[in-house]
């Protein structure tokens, strides 16, 4: 097995045992990036050659020097007989929405194309403290606003390693693709409405949105502060557990970070799932779109293969001893997206106020005669259209003078969505679930340009994931098969508050029972030709 195919768990074990040098791991990751990634995304990056079209383009910035220095430190620590950390020598990519001192932190926007933060985000700091090697910053939708990566100001945007004509999903598309293409073992992403899980599903990797507050948001450039969650992307559940272990826990610099003790995710991971109650809900069998002429919702069934994979996965889990509970009502699922439109846009518009050309980042190069012009031109030139759309929508929804207060109304809907989960998980309720099993996405990855521009359709690709953000509960996506086109299908396990341990354990059990399935032998397109051991 090549070095880059190793799991994070294995890398850390071997590095700590002295069987492997962290520097060699870093070099192997850098070589893999050179081999599969192609041109890094850049501002004004235009059309690319046919050859480049076949590349992954996950990275905006490769931090070779930083990774090698960190690797040296790990190797020295091991040589001195010190504990080199949970993630000793593990190559990691960071979604370029996290501030990391010593890097440019762009948010994939022209607005921050020159921004060098003088501090490092808490989750990144904790990864480094546990011996991780930061290989670079990976692409995303501009300011995380999208579900395909196409809205990045840094082009070429990331492609799906399984089929480079397709999108990797988003907004953590660069994260998911870099893990799938074995450029890194782990990636740090963010999930506001599905931004870790949707790209993880599209790219055939594991993605975990932790409970709100489980991982500090300090250093994450905010999209929607009441929904944003940093979390891991990995190639298996053990690695996700390992990475969460390294990052989770209270942060005195984030008031909303939870003071609750962090579970030992690794020690319970291998336990079986006998007797665990796993629910299926008919409310996740379809997507509900509004007709924008009439406003009425109409129902569209999810992709057939996704549906089949979900039910087949449930059978596999039943075989492993879990109890499948059908027909769990989650009646407010259909309102997840409209409520998200309100809450996320209102918060985003406010969070983006600070980008005004005064203190940092881009400032218009045109001659301006007054302050207001400086603001308007800077923001007009610095933000892409999807960002402007979110700002304007947020302005509309929070402006004074409506009959209804949209934001408060949406927060009440949010309370109802939360109630669906509370009922499903209630220990003495009708369903008493340990986890809810759903599709992660209604469809597999779509082609580039197929959806981009239609902001409504793009947003609705988060319908299966957004409810857990509203409710604050943890949710895990794991690969569960391929569709007829050979594109990955993900299934989602949603748990009760702070029960990351349970959903990881169920995910791990699923990996065990599906170990020998044929789809697990198939490799992403960009890795074809490489032989999997």
């Amino acid at each position, binding site marked *: 097995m090549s070095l880059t195919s190793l799991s994070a768990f294995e890398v850390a074990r071997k590095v700590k045992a002295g069987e492997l040098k962290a520097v060699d791991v870093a070099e192997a990751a850098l070589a893999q990036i050179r081999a599969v990634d192609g041109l890094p995304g850049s501002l004004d990056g235009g059309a690319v050659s046919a050859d480049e079209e076949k590349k992954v383009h996950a990275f905006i910035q490769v931090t070779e020097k930083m990774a090698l220095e960190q690797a040296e430190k790990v190797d020295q620590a091991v040589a001195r007989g010190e504990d080199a950390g949970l993630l000793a020598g593990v190559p990691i990519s960071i979604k370029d929405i996290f501030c990391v001192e010593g890097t440019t932190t762009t948010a994939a926007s022209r607005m921050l194309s020159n921004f060098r933060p003088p501090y490092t985000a808490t989750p990144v700091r904790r990864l480094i403290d546990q011996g991780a090697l930061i290989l670079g910053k990976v692409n995303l939708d501009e300011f995380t606003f999208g579900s395909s990566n196409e809205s990045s100001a840094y082009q070429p945007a990331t492609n799906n390693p399984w089929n480079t004509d397709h999108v990797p999903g988003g907004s953590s598309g660069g994260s998911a693709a870099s893990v799938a293409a074995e450029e890194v073992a782990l990636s740090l992403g963010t999930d506001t409405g599905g931004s870790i899980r949707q790209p993880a599903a599209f790219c055939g990797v594991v993605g975990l949105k932790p409970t709100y507050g489980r991982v500090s948001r300090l250093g994450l450039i905010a999209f929607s502060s009441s929904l944003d969650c940093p979390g891991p992307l990995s190639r298996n559940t053990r690695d996700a557990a390992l990475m969460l272990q390294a990052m989770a826990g209270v942060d005195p610099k984030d*008031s909303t970070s939870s003071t609750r003790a962090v579970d030992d995710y690794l020690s319970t991971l291998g336990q079986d799932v006998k007797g665990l109650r796993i629910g299926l809900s008919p409310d996740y069998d379809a997507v509900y779109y509004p007709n924008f002429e009439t406003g009425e919702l109409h129902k569209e069934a999810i992709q057939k293969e996704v549906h089949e994979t979900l039910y087949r996965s449930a059978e596999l889990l039943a075989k492993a001893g879990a109890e499948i509970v059908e027909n769990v009502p989650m009646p407010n699922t259909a309102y997840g997206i409209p409520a998200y439109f309100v809450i996320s846009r209102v918060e985003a518009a406010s969070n983006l106020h600070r980008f005004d050309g005064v203190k940092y980042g881009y400032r218009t190069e045109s001659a301006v005669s007054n302050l207001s012009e400086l603001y308007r031109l800077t923001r007009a030139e610095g933000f892409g259209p999807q960002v402007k759309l979110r700002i304007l929508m947020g302005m509309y929804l929070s402006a004074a003078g409506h009959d209804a207060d949209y934001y408060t109304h949406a927060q009440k809907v949010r309370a109802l969505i939360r109630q669906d989960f509370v009922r499903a998980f209630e220990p003495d309720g009708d369903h008493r679930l340990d986890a809810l099993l759903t599709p992660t996405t209604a469809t597999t990855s779509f082609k580039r340009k197929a959806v981009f521009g239609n902001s409504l359709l793009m947003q609705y690709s988060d319908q299966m994931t957004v409810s857990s953000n509203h409710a604050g509960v943890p949710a895990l996506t794991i690969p569960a098969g391929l569709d007829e086109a050979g594109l990955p299908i993900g299934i989602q396990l949603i748990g009760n508050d702070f029960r990351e341990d349970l959903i990881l354990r169920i995910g791990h059990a699923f990996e065990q029972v599906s170990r020998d399935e044929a789809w697990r032998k198939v490799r992403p397109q960009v890795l074809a030709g490489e032989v999997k051991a």
Partner: protein
Amino acid sequence: MKDYEVVIGLETHIQLNTRTKIFCSCKADSWEDEANTNICPVCSGLPGTLPVLNAEAVQKGALLAAAMHAEVNPLSRFDRKNYFYPDLPKGYQITQFDEPIGKGGYLDLKMADGTKKRVRIHKLHLEEDAGKTKIEHGTRLVDFNRCGVPLIEMVTEPDLRSGEEAAQYLIQLRQLLRWIGVSEADMERGHLRCDANVSIRERGSQVLNTKTEIKNVNSIDSVRQAIGEEAKRQIELVESGGKVESYTLDWDADRNKLSLMRSKETEADYRYFRDPDLLPVKLSREEIAGIMAALPELPLERQARFVTEYGLSEYDADILTNERSLSDYYEAAVGAYTGEPKAVANWMMNDLSRMLNDLGKTADQLVLGPKALAEIIQMIDDGKINAATGKSLLKKVEESGSRPAEIVEKEGLGLIADSDALRAQIEAVLADAPDEVANFKAGKESLLGWFVGQVMRRTGGKADPKRTRELLLEMLRK
């Protein structure tokens, strides 16, 4: 001309004297610091940073709310007020909108004619201060040092009726802030800033007419003058058939002039909403009880008690309760003194207050403590020293830190009350003045005063005058 009255509401911003800023660990006070040296990623609004609330700002805010007789909110919340301005690095100010730390309340003003006037408080909330900007050759320069300094914004109901009343409100609010120790309330340093809402109406009317807002009335004099000017302008305007418009005006304290800042039609839409980065501020019943318990006796209460308990005049009690430390000093001195409390008051209002002025100190900063003052007065009462020595002792104690009795002893400042010593001095005086002795003995007893004076001269004023008189009579009548 009709009879008009002026209707005024004041909006004050009070800088709390916490050690650090409200949402980050930079120090709150930057008075001595160069621009942009007391800043961090949080208060300068860098992307990805988050606010963490300073517990002391909540405590001081709640204490002020309690002192204003406001209801201390057990669950207050922070909101974002969104607008663009270069001194506001996040593009929004973190403030409290509909669930502030204090609701309602009032401040009772004592007026010059001895009456009391109640000014109701509309609301009182915590917020962060913005930075400072200045213009230099057409460029605006921004300093973030002040960003994130904790403020209480306090808004009165339109209960004030003249510039003088508004000035009194500020004077007495300033006294209260210092009294309870939540703010230095130094207006020159911007610890207490004020905007005034002014309208006029016919006396007797209850309507609230269109008001103008005057910004930056940041001294007591400015408040008096700016409101006076604006009331005059509005009356003249209305009398000449015009209509008051909802302007925002700026007070230029250097030129004593009002100028138009903007008309209200362009007022921004702040799009307030809850700040998701901060959790609600909870104060338990016990915590609120603790804050109420920590609330000291307030100036007006203490003034009234001084009148009844110590028999002081209203005037004296007023002066002595101007500052909390002065009144604490007074009470401690009275406690250590066996004579009339009024005597201590006299000393404090004259000699001690002169000394405080000269030294630029407050009473609690004196080396000369209240016990030392009581001891000095007591020594005069007991005839151990004379009044002049007592006065000179004030300075000596302050400078040396020694006890008054020690200084008297060491410097020989005590009165000569010892009979033998005095007798010797008197004999010498009598020996030098045979004619006067003869005259006295012949019946001119009015010479006694002259003899006392001679003894005093001989002893450098240290002879106990009472004892001297007794001995003189005894020796002359022998």
